[in-house]
């Protein structure tokens, strides 16, 4: 495992860059799908790129109450999510950085970003920020057991928390045999919706204090900082989608490096992830925002689903 050539490392960095670069596209595709299923035309799928570039060029206004935590948070968010991208296999069956960190490190990096986002919400002395942090605290606390239980099912079945190991053994098996993994899939899907702030949990397209969670925390951001926040949120989303695809739909990964294989792998990756993104967006148009305290019911579903996954796995 440890003897990788320079080409491998180059491809590894290329995979990470691919995730970082493609992330706004997925956001665009999701918005387009939503618009279509609501009988709107919607903006183009490249709109998020234009938004990020425009925001990067704007002056920013920051709150006079805020401290360095507020200013550092967008950078920390970007660094943590972009670093997590290095450990995710995209079109190769492995990531050469797999030996550096595993899925628990990815979870930890996300948690670090979220820790600072919650602090930034509190930093501006606005009640909106506190509201967002308080709700995010609740959701993140409840998601954690479901997440680790799902990781447990996946790790026990595929023999590792190292994502490269998981993907290569998933690539070798056919998925239908394993009821435990099916339950893990349900749990992971719910977790994915919760972590990326999708509809039954959080409505990212409104600025209404009744519904917002993530938006409330980033309400005070503008300009460059906002661009980085949005971008890192998009990267986190695509990483979760990629993990989903890697673990549950693991077909036709590139094992032998060749130009055709890689370009085919990239195409397949984009198709799979955009299909998943469209599906998620479609689900989003079908459900309403749940009351905050009913969100815990949904997460309880994820927890029990992963618990049954464990039972199926062992008995």
């Amino acid at each position, binding site marked *: 495992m440890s003897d990788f050539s320079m080409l491998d490392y180059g491809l590894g960095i290329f995979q990470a860059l691919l995730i970082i670069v493609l992330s706004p596209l997925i956001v665009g595709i999701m918005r387009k799908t939503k618009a279509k299923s609501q009988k709107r035309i919607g903006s183009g799928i490249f709109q998020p790129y234009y938004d990020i570039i425009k925001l*990067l*060029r*704007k*002056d920013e*206004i*920051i*709150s006079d*109450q805020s*401290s360095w935590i507020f200013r550092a948070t967008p*950078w920390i968010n*970007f*660094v943590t999510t*972009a*670093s997590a991208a290095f450990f995710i296999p995209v079109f190769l069956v492995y990531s050469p*950085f797999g*030996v*550096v*960190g*595993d899925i*628990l*490190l990815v979870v*930890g990096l996300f*948690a670090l970003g979220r*820790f600072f986002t919650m602090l930034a919400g*509190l930093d*501006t*002395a*606005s*009640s*909106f*920020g*506190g*509201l967002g*942090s*308080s*709700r995010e605290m609740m959701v993140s*606390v*409840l998601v*954690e*057991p479901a997440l*680790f*239980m799902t990781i*447990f099912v996946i*790790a026990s079945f595929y*023999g*590792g928390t*190292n994502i490269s*190991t998981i993907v290569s*053994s998933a690539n070798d098996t056919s998925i239908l045999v394993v009821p435990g993994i099916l339950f893990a899939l349900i749990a992971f899907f719910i977790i994915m919706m919760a972590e990326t702030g999708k509809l039954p949990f959080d409505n990212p397209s409104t600025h209404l204090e009744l519904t917002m969670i993530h938006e409330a925390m980033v309400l*005070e951001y503008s*300009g*460059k900082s906002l661009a*980085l926040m949005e971008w890192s949120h998009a990267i986190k989303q695509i990483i979760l989608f990629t993990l989903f695809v890697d673990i549950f739909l693991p077909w036709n990964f590139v094992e032998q490096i060749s130009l055709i294989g890689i370009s085919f792998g990239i195409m397949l990756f984009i198709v799979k992830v955009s299909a998943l993104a469209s599906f998620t967006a479609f689900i989003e148009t079908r459900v309403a925002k749940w009351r*905050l*305290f009913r969100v815990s019911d949904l997460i309880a579903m994820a*927890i029990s689903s992963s*618990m049954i996954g*464990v039972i199926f796995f*062992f*008995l």
Partner: protein
Amino acid sequence: MSENLSIVYVIIAFFSLGATLGLFTRGQKYHAYFTYIPSAFASFLTIILSLAIFSSENIHLTFFNIQHLFDFEIFIDGVAAFFLLIIGLIPFAVSIYSLSYSKKFDDKKNNSALGMLFNVFIISMILVVISNNVFFFLIFWELMSLTSFFLVIYEHENKNNLKSGLTYLVMTHLGTGFIFASFMLMYAQTGSFSFDSFRDVTIIPQYVKDIAFVLAFVGFGTKAGMIPLHTWLPKAHPSAPSNVSALMSAVMLKIAIYGIVRYLFDFNAIGSSSDYVWLGVGIIIIGSISALVGILYALVENNIKRALAFSSIENIGIIFIGLGLSVVFAAFHLLSLSVLAFIASMFHTLNHSIFKGLLFMTAGSIHYSTHTKNIEDLGGLIKKMPWTAMMFLIGSIAIIGLPPLNGFIGEWLTLQSLLAVFQIPSNILQVSLAFAILAFALTIGLAGATFVRLFGITFLSKSRSSKAINAVEVPRLMLIGKAILASSCVLLGILPFIGINLIVSAFDLPYTPSSPFETISITNADGSNFASLLMPAVLIIFVSVIVGIFAFVRIIGGKTKTIKYGTWDCGFGSLSERTQYTATSLAEPIRRIFGIFYNPYNDITVNSYAKENLYLKKSINVISTTRNIFDEKLYGKIISGSLFVLDKIRKIQSGKVNAYILYIMITLIALLLFVGFGIHE
């Protein structure tokens, strides 16, 4: 080794010097220096001693020999040396911190007592760890308990402190009672008070060892603060002066862990009997419950020091989970996993000492500077005390187990050993231990929420009272004390092999120690990589991403201005400090979901302008309280029950002299009968 032995003498001499000077230089200008510089020096020597033991052989000698009962034996092996490292490192930082911190008590007339007790407390902990004999172990254990009791009630002007000191005294003696019973059981089998005879495990039957271990576990667990015997901990730790709370939480709890480790891995041969499966599972269950319940109470606590004390219970729980897993794995002869879980547990022990010491010192700095422990009165301190805020941030990130600090490594290792339960060849155990992951994961999540709340409310947004507005940064010596531990957090996080190698060589584990730049990796049976972690490389990725994105933003974005302006107030005019989220409201959602633990209670009083018209409200007061179900349901019942019984017993004490004589007579007759029957047999 003779040099090492002389270091021991020098350590004891310097602590005694500190204690004496502390007592006799009362009221002098350089009082603090006379007291704390010797202790800092002696603590530093303790670190050197433990490192020397790692690289050379153990010290084992007997001092005086009185009928084999009371001989003072010392024995410093790797296990003791590992805990000596903790007793060296934390008190070293705390002593430097105390040089300035003790100025807070300058106008108190018993300031000298604080310095004396501080020194005696540390030396008693060292002596507990190195003594190798039941009698002296218990003497020093008691000395440790008593000095810490006096330190808890040091600020005895406050009635609450006295009360919590009393709770501590009762609970700690309950624990000592259990330990004593356990030792007596072992003595009954071996006929010797020396720990050496206890190590000779072959002569003791298995069931006796099990009972002795359970008794010792309860006893040491009381000291460590396991649920449900934790009740003294959240009372005593906040009452003591902050430098002492740092020592109690960071070091004294670890002495209890030391006792359990001694029992488990030294006096017992784990893995030799299937009983250890159930002992291990029991430890895991108690650990999970302690972790979960501890952090649940920390989350809603407004007293910053009490919140930290509850979080200590949580971390002790995590350490127990690791220990229990190690025992279970060993019972199934999964040696490498057992080593993994044990390393996880000991790594977390070391970590917890470091960051909990750091956090308690920071809490002390906040108290030093604002004279309040209630976080609802704080806020905005990051602008007033930037360095303290930085230290608290490092401590928080470390304690909630986020990369790249040391807490992450400890929790990563613990999680990996939990994930490895699928290798246990028993279905029922696999599934039930898998559910321990649920508790552990919830604990991690709640810990994150707790420290967001503590840091956010204390340091961020607007100041909530004049106490916080007038705060200033603490003196430099206090910052240096904290910085020592903060840098240890960073160092152990980025180069975890420093810690792992220490543990491996201390406990003589079957594992080859390697360079600090090694990858932690766990491999499957077929050779594929189960998990691996290489923190220096993570740091390199961090740095390259930072450089990359910074360049990207500069190139695409160009130069832009940053304007400072008021927070968005929806156009309603300026926001005040009363419109921000408070500590209570921040935790409200979680308080509602886990309401069963808190009994949350809102007392609402509405004042109207006139009695006739209740709709014109003058003011609405809401008092929101949470209650501790353990104090209320468990201890409340026990206390009222024992009061009832004692009330009945009090009838015996009638006040009449005749009655007392009657008692004497009855006792005498009873004794005589007893002896008489004894002889006839």
